[in-house]
Each structure stands twice: as structure tokens, then as C-alpha cells.
């Protein structure tokens, strides 16, 4: 009896998640169709997104025009870090980037409209202004990642391949959680949308350089407090056959999926708390 009850519970949770994803899908599809009216600006923004990340990488290559190694890492190694973190971030930005508009929605009152619909609010917020032009960022980072793979001369065992794929996917989930956390935070502080830039854009700026560059305290902070180190640093060091500067146990290189799950639980809980706070205070 207890088993069937918990089974029903699990089915309800799963059903809600599937429904939330489906709702996300059809709202995002509306945005794609809607943006079709502005094809020229789609092309421009695709290019702009491509170029904006390309400039970040241009700055890195300019650095390597002056030095052979940074923190003991060569250009292809740094490009590998750059590619993995930026592809992961790009995926999260594509799928959940507009969660940063929560504060604006609370201010202009449109949050109320979202609450009168039978669709999870998170799905509606995340699918808001879904724009395929954010693929430009993923494309650029993917090219850099591809280039680094051809230059690294690594032995591509099945384990390394699996680690690479899981790195990008788990990284996207972790960054996605940062977006949701940032959005949830705005239920309390509507004007604070810039705080999350420190963790999102600040995060990729951090992760595209080797951890040896940074102070140990900072590395500890992004490992144990804001677990961005699991996006690419720890698994990437394993792929590259490098030691991590903190001398952490080896199993932590494979902990990204578990960390990503924990992040989801935390982000989900804070999102619900934020929504509850909004519903009890209004704006």
C-alpha cells in the first residue's frame, strides 16, 4: 500500500515535470514563430552573439601572442576550458536565460497574468522571449572546442568521451540553476538582476582560464559554495591529465552529475519559496 502511494506521488511529480516541459516547448515555439516577423534582426543578433563571445576568445589569443603559457596551460588547453564552459553556458542561456526578467515582470504586473494560467510559472518565465539567435554563442564556443580537440593530441578513450559529454550537459544544468536562482532572488529584490551577472558572465570568464591562475580561496569558493568548478574545471583537468590545485580526491572529478542534481533541488526549492513570497506580499 505504501509503495503504491509513493508510486502515485512519484508519478504526479513526473507528470508535472513532463507537463512543464511540454508547456515550455509550445510557448518557446510561439516565440520562434513570433520572431520570424523580424528575420533581418534575427540574422544580426545571431552574428552579434557569435561576435561577442568571439571577442572574448580574441582577447585570449592576444594574450597568447605575448606568452606561451598562462598558469602553466597552453593555448589549446585554455581553448578546451573556454569551449567547454561556453558551450555549457550557451545551452543554459538559450533555454533559461530569460529567467532574469522576473524582476521586470513583478514590477510591470505581468507576473499576475502568468499566475492565472494552468501552466507552471517557471515554464512560462523560462520560455519568455525564447530566441534561437542565442545559438550564435554556442556555435562560436563549439568551433573553439573543436579546434582545441584537434590540437590537444589526447587519446580519446570511451571514458574521456563520456566525461566530455557529461561535462557539457551537467555544466549547462548547473548554469541553468544559477539562472533560476537569480530569477527567484528577484522575487525579493526586484532591481537586483545584475547580481546574477556576477555568477553567469563572471562564471564563464572565470572558467575559461585554468584554476591555477586564481587564488586558492577563490577556487575553494567556486568548488564548495557556488559549485561552478564542476561545470568544467574538475572534469576538464581529468581529461587533460592535470592535477587540480586544491589536491581534491579523484572521485570529485566525476561528481558533476550529482552536483547538478543537488543544484536542481536547491534552485527548485528557492524558486518555490520566491513564488510563495510573491503571492503573500504582491508587489
Amino acid at each position, binding site marked *: 500500500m505504501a509503495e503504491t502511494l509513493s508510486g502515485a506521488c512519484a508519478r504526479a511529480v513526473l507528470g508535472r515535470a513532463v507537463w512543464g516541459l511540454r508547456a515550455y516547448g509550445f510557448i518557446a515555439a510561439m516565440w520562434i514563430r513570433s520572431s520570424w516577423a*523580424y528575420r*533581418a*534582426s534575427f540574422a*544580426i*543578433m545571431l*552574428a*552579434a*552573439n557569435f*561576435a*561577442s563571445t568571439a*571577442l*572574448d576568445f*580574441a*582577447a585570449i589569443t*592576444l*594574450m597568447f*601572442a*605575448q*606568452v*606561451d*603559457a*598562462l*598558469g602553466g596551460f597552453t593555448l589549446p588547453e585554455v581553448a578546451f576550458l573556454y569551449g567547454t564552459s561556453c558551450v555549457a553556458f550557451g545551452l543554459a542561456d538559450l533555454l533559461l536565460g530569460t529567467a532574469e526578467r522576473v524582476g521586470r515582470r513583478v514590477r510591470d504586473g505581468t507576473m499576475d497574468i502568468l499566475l492565472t494560467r494552468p501552466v507552471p510559472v517557471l515554464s512560462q518565465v523560462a520560455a519568455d522571449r525564447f530566441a534561437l539567435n542565442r545559438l550564435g554563442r554556442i556555435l562560436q564556443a563549439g568551433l573553439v572546442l573543436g579546434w582545441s580537440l584537434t590540437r590537444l593530441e589526447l587519446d580519446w578513450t570511451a571514458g574521456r568521451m563520456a566525461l566530455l559529454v557529461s561535462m557539457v550537459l551537467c555544466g549547462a544544468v548547473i548554469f541553468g540553476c544559477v539562472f533560476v536562482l537569480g530569477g527567484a532572488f528577484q522575487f525579493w*529584490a*526586484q*532591481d*537586483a*538582476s*545584475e*547580481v546574477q*551577472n*556576477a*555568477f553567469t*558572465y*563572471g562564471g564563464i*570568464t*572565470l572558467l575559461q*582560464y585554468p584554476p*591555477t*591562475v*586564481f*587564488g586558492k580561496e*577563490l577556487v575553494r569558493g567556486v568548488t564548495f559554495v557556488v559549485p561552478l568548478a564542476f561545470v568544467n574545471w574538475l572534469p576538464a583537468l581529468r581529461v587533460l591529465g592535470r592535477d587540480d590545485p586544491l589536491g581534491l580526491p579523484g572521485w570529485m572529478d566525476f561528481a558533476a552529475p550529482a552536483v547538478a542534481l543537488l543544484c536542481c533541488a536547491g534552485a527548485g526549492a528557492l524558486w518555490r519559496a520566491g513564488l510563495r513570497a510573491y503571492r503573500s506580499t504582491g508587489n
Partner: protein
Amino acid sequence: MHLLRLNLAVAASGFRRYATYRVATAAGVFTNTVFGFILAYTFLALWHERPHLGGYDQSQALTFVWTGQALLAAVALLGGGFQDEFHERIRNGDVAIDLYRPVDLQLWWLAHDLGRAAFQLVGRGVAPMAAGALVFDLALPSSPAVWLLFLLSALLAIVVSFALRYLWALCGFWLLDATGLSALSTLMSLFFSGMLLPLTVFPGGFGDAVRWLPWAATLQVPADVLLGAHPGGSLPGLAFQLVWAVVLLAAGRLLQFVATRKVVVQGG
């Protein structure tokens, strides 16, 4: 005299408007500080490999990073400020109303932007700089005269940045979609101001060319004035900024003339 009072009032309203967003200011300071830390460490690694890169020693390089974070909002290195609002008024036609006001359009927006910058220089500049100075060994000048020159240089940087953004916004008279334009303007500003990497580190002829572009006047020059590292001294640096400010404001004036004639001909 009346005109001066009017522009002071406009500037004051720009200042107050940004001053009301306390939470947003605090959020911005936090983000600037985090970025400052990240960039400072990468610069440390770079200057560890190549001491005296770009003519800076290590603490000068770190000072460059924190100067960039301190000026980021005031000089609007990421674009924005009045630019979006002005562009929106061009797009929806409200600019026609502005043209009938007794005040000059360019001067009005300049006063407004200076008011905003004055607030953001204090509200968003001082705290990150202080945080950087607490943690890292910065090469900050002890002479008040240098600080005065730096403030002057920062003011000129704001004017040049304004003049550039004014030109970008005026393009809206011909191109209706702003998103691509503002993205492009941000990209150029980020890269050519020295925000990503000091322009003195850019190699060879490319580096020489980049240092003559107007964007150099928005961050590279003020930072060099503060560091006392501008080639030939600070005064040529200020002159460089002044020339670009005058040229770009004049270009804005010219473009505005052409654009408003277009509006009048079309009947708004």
C-alpha cells in the same frame, strides 16, 4: 546664464533618477567587484609570465583592471544609459516633440548623461576600487594633482562615450531595429576601449592603430593618466580625448541636422 541653469537642472534630474535605484546600484557594485577579482587574477598570471608587458608593472596592471571596473558604469562602456531611451523616442516618433523644445537636443541629452555618470562614478566606482585596493597592491598615485587630472580625463571619457552613443542612437533614424546596432556598439566599445585587455598589450601595427581610435579615449587614456603611464605625459592624453570629443560631438551635430531634416520632410 539661463541655459546653464537649465542644463544643470537636467543633469540633476539624471543624477536623481539613477540615485533612486539603491538595490540596483548595490547589485552593480557587487558584480563589478566580482569581475574585478576574476580579471585581476588573470592579469596577475599574465604579468607573472611577462613582467612589464605593455609597459606596466604588475601593480600597474592590477590598477588598470580596477580602474576599468570603477569606470565601467560611469563611462557606459557596455552601452546603454540614455542611448536606449533616445533610440526608443526616435523609433516611436516622440523625438519630433523633443525637437520643438526650446533646448538643444544634443545638449539636453549630454546634460542628462553627465548627471547619470556623476552618480555612477561615485555610486558604482568608489566601492569596487576600494575593494581592489584592500586586497591587491595597487599603484594608486599619492599626488592630488594626478587624481585631479584623472577626474578631468574621466569627464572627457564620459563626453567621448556620450558622443559615440549619440551617433549610434541617431542611426535609428535610418535603421528601425535597434537591437543589432546596440549589440554592435557594445562589442566595439568593449574591445577597443581596453576593457578586455589593455590596448598597450595589443601587438604590432594593430595595437598602434587601435590606440588612435576614439574608444581609446574612454578607458585606456584615463587609466594611463591615473597610472602616469601615458606616453609623453598626461596632457597629450587629455588633448587626444578633447580632440575626439570635439570631432564626435560635431559629427553628432551634423548627423542630427541631416536626420531632423528628414523628420521635418516626412512630417514626423
